């Protein structure tokens, strides 16, 4: 336990420094692209608290991502605020509330029933966002202006792209680092250990005094909030929120990149999300058949590399970071 954090710090510190230096080296487009990757990585962190640490496969995490994103759009539309801190707070409250409610219903189930129930509930939100167009804009979605950062002290200025690729990138990076640190603490706390006990053997966990449903519910809410934070950070980048991010196929992508990185490791989902983002952007940019590219990658991945990228690298001993 004492050796592991030191080893993690030993390689994560240079990575972090490289990430900070990046906007000054690469073209702005690359930085914006990486911002998307980091945002997805926050969602993946939250998602993996359920899949990797609690053993629950949710096919409905689009609900919390979308709750965060639509909360931001509503803050702009109805409260007229444009502060990123207000956006984040709104995203946390909205996704937390939705996750608390849906979690109450879902945590009694496991395996395929958990997956279908989370999916059905997320589709409820999707169909509401789709049909109540006078509130949500329907399939056109809602526009969100570029926010001000740090209580209004950092403003967008004249060049929006420059703002997104520098100031907003650092903002996303800072939130990302905080999220990683918080999640690291959560999974290494007694609470995190209890979740892993539930994952490995529910009955035994119950016998040693873990209140299984209660712990699962708390994990569900935390997971939803992380995903909601990602949704709130995503909207200003995209400038628009549409029902697409509430659709269950978006949940499928979250499952995809978490498994791509390796859900049995702490850092796997982060790596998976960032690589997935590049993969998707590249595929969308080069072919109209990008879904097929993603599908083939997923099928090959499941058949050949079930442990994911980080899991496979770790198995071959190239980066001996043992987590949990």
């Amino acid at each position: 336990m004492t050796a592991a954090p030191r080893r993690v710090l030993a390689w994560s510190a240079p990575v972090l420094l490289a990430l900070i230096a990046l906007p000054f080296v690469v073209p702005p487009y690359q930085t914006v692209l990486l911002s998307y990757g980091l945002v997805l990585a926050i969602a993946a962190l939250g998602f993996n608290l359920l899949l990797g640490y609690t053993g629950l496969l949710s096919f409905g995490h689009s609900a919390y991502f979308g709750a965060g994103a639509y909360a931001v759009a509503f803050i702009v539309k109805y409260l007229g605020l444009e502060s990123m801190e207000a956006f984040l707070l709104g995203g946390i409250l909205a996704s937390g509330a939705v996750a608390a409610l849906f979690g109450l219903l879902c945590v009694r189930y496991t395996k395929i029933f958990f997956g279908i129930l989370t999916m059905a509930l997320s589709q409820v939100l999707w169909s509401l966002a789709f049909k109540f167009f006078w509130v949500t804009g329907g399939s056109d979605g809602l526009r969100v202006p570029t926010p001000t950062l740090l209580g209004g002290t950092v403003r967008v200025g004249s060049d929006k792209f420059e703002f997104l690729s520098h100031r907003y990138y650092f903002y996303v990076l800072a939130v990302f680092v905080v999220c990683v640190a918080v999640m690291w603490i959560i999974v290494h706390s007694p609470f995190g250990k209890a979740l892993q006990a539930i994952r490995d053997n529910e009955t035994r966990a119950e016998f040693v005094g873990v209140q299984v449903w209660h712990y699962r519910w708390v994990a569900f809410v935390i997971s939803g909030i992380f995903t909601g934070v990602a949704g709130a950070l995503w909207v200003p980048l995209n400038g628009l929120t549409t029902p697409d991010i509430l659709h269950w196929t978006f949940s499928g992508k979250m499952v995809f990149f978490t498994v791509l990185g390796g859900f049995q490791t702490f850092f796997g989902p982060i790596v998976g999300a960032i690589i997935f983002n590049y993969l998707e952007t590249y595929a969308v940019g080069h072919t109209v058949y990008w879904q097929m590219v993603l599908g083939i990658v997923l099928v090959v991945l499941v058949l050949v590399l079930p442990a994911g990228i980080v899991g496979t690298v770790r198995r071959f001993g190239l980066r001996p970071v043992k987590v949990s």
Partner: protein
Amino acid sequence: MDTLVVHLLNALLYASVMFLIAGGLSLIYGVMRIVNLAHGNLYAFGAYVSAWAVGRVLGSGTEASPWLYALLPLGAVAAAGLGAVLEPTLLRPLYRRAEEYQLLITFGLLLILEDLMRLIWGPYPLQVSALYEGLGSLTFGESIYPTYNLLVILIGGLAAAGLWAFVYRTQFGVVLRATSQNMRMASALGVNVNRVYVQAFTLGCFMAGLGGAVIVPQQGAVLGMGVDALILAFVVVVIGGLGSLEGALIGALMVGVVREAGITFFPEIELAVLYLMAAVVLLIRPAGILGRA
């Protein structure tokens, strides 16, 4: 009164197509314990193949000769063939693995099939409405109703009866049910489980393809129809019970009635009501109305 009959017939129409899709999904789950996320795409595949075949023969003409209807089942056969290829190649290696991976590989399959149809048939919808209009419509009282819809309802009913006879009245049905109840025991008694799996999967895909084939004259074949149908099929099997054919029938009838009522009385929340119905059933009876736990 007449409008009530029309509403009821529409509900039955939805129910027939939903039963064909969801029945196949449920059959596959019942025997193989796999939830096939690509099932909706097999339905869409059936629709595309039928529309393509009819369109080729029909050419630029609009006159629907009776034997064109005989081309429609081609979609079901094509979907069955696709299923017979997919099961041994992609699914069989995964039976020993955690079910997360089975879901993932069928999700990958969904993405691939979705674009494969775009690649083969292009981004524009295929229409064969000549077949739909060719049968004309019936008049009763002050209402008129398309005859083709009645044909779909008839096929849905026949499919349900045929499947019931197949599963409960044939030698193969006995083997199928035995494998479904206890795969190991069936295997120990000499059942070739691999063969049963591929047959069950093929039959399930055939039903999905048939669903697409019968509805394509009315709705056309469009991209994305599979993904939408899958979620409704989930609602049906969750209500009726995963793995139960009778459950799929009951679920399909309920979904058909609620959809028709929804479109008429509460169009904004029609879909939300359906998903909520599934969630409520899962909460009260996790295994569905007729499901085994």
